[in-house]
């Protein structure tokens, strides 16, 4: 299994290109945390249960992402700064299909 390259724009507008492993059962929120692209305590607060929206991000590339679960959809309906391309990072599992994915972290709320 190999890594995929993902571009993540942090909350200060800085773009980071990082290697994300596809064989570690990780999601996008955890990738952001592992590279410390957002301060601890401001992302992944609920641990990845789609219950806090602290890992909201905007998907900027046209990758085919897994469909939203009802939980994710409902959480985004209550979150702020939500756009058409908003997703919760914790619900995006890292797979080989995500090579070249580009995302931007939504503001902290």
């Amino acid at each position, binding site marked *: 299994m190999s890594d995929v390259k993902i571009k993540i724009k942090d909350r200060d507008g800085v773009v980071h290109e990082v290697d994300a492993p596809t064989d570690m059962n990780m999601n996008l929120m955890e990738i952001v945390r592992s590279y410390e692209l957002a*301060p601890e305590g401001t992302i992944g*607060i*609920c641990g990845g249960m789609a219950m806090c929206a602290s890992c909201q991000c905007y998907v900027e590339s046209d990758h085919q992402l897994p469909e939203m679960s009802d939980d994710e959809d409902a959480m985004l309906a*209550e979150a702020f700064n939500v756009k058409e391309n908003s997703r919760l990072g914790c619900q995006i599992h890292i797979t080989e299909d995500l090579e070249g994915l580009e995302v931007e972290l939504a503001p902290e709320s």
Partner: protein
Amino acid sequence: MIKTDILIIGAGPTGLFAVFEAGLLQLKCHLIDALPQAGGQCSEIYPKKPIYDIPGFPEVLAGDLVNNLMEQIKAFQPGFTLGERANTIEKLDDGTFLVTTNKGTKHNAPIIAIAGGLGSFEPRKPLINNLSAFEERGVAYFIKDPEVYRNKKVLIAGGGDSALDWSIFLADVASEVTLVHRRNEFRGALDSVEKVQALKNIGKINLITPAEVVDLKGSGKLEAVVIHKSGDKDEEIIKEIDEFIPLFGLSPKLGPIGNWGLEIEKNAIKVDTFDYQTNIPGIYAIGDVNTYPGKLKLILCGFHEATLMCQSAYQRIFPDKKYVMKYTTVGGVSGFDGSKKEAPKSVVKSID
């Protein structure tokens, strides 16, 4: 003034278990929590989620874990100051600490254990420009006393359980209840969703979806809100109301503890792993709120930290007492309520 041996800030699983370990050492505890109930995140965010890594519990719901902890510590009669946030700390001349909450409740103890998790839960406020200008003047994020809303025109925004449940409750109290949500779908207990539907059908709840409150109007006090309703044709609705209650959940903030002079790193309090003491002697930090090399934010790690913290606290309070840790299988558990639990004695009897 509330006096205790160990003042625990945060009534999540780690804080609750600390009461047990302290109790075994005959130390009394009092807990402060900003939430109205004990249990921290387990009760507030995910009571119905199963946890699989509590030793000895192949599977336990977060809410049940909290109930079990409350049962386990009952005999040690912990005190609780709930719904209040620890605001300030002061070191007194006798070396003890004085902690005052946002509501002015004073607590005095020689030992402080911060078990604050990710911080105190603060309401998530919608992004409306002039929102803060109307706080306490028609805008509230918590419902403390429903009677405040009697015969008032109330507008609730949000799509989760609390928005649904309070709409149902206030339908019988307020003169008019309007519920605004960005979607047509709500996320809540089926029973609550159905009740709101029924109340809407008989005209007791006025439902506006998909819509969002975008502006507030009033001079000195809230008088009306501007609602943006989307649909085939977007429209702006100006609605006269007395009270606006946005219920968009809670988000944890380290808050005032961040200004207590404690060494902070990555939104957490640095501790010495010898006994989880902070840079201020007598103040400990346990559970998710602390950080040290190799830290893992796990409930089971919080339990361990609470246990070591209590041993160190005992030494601090009684520096001259000799003490060795006793197993509960040997010493049993003697509650402050006079209860005593211990292993049944085996009999020594000859068999003919």
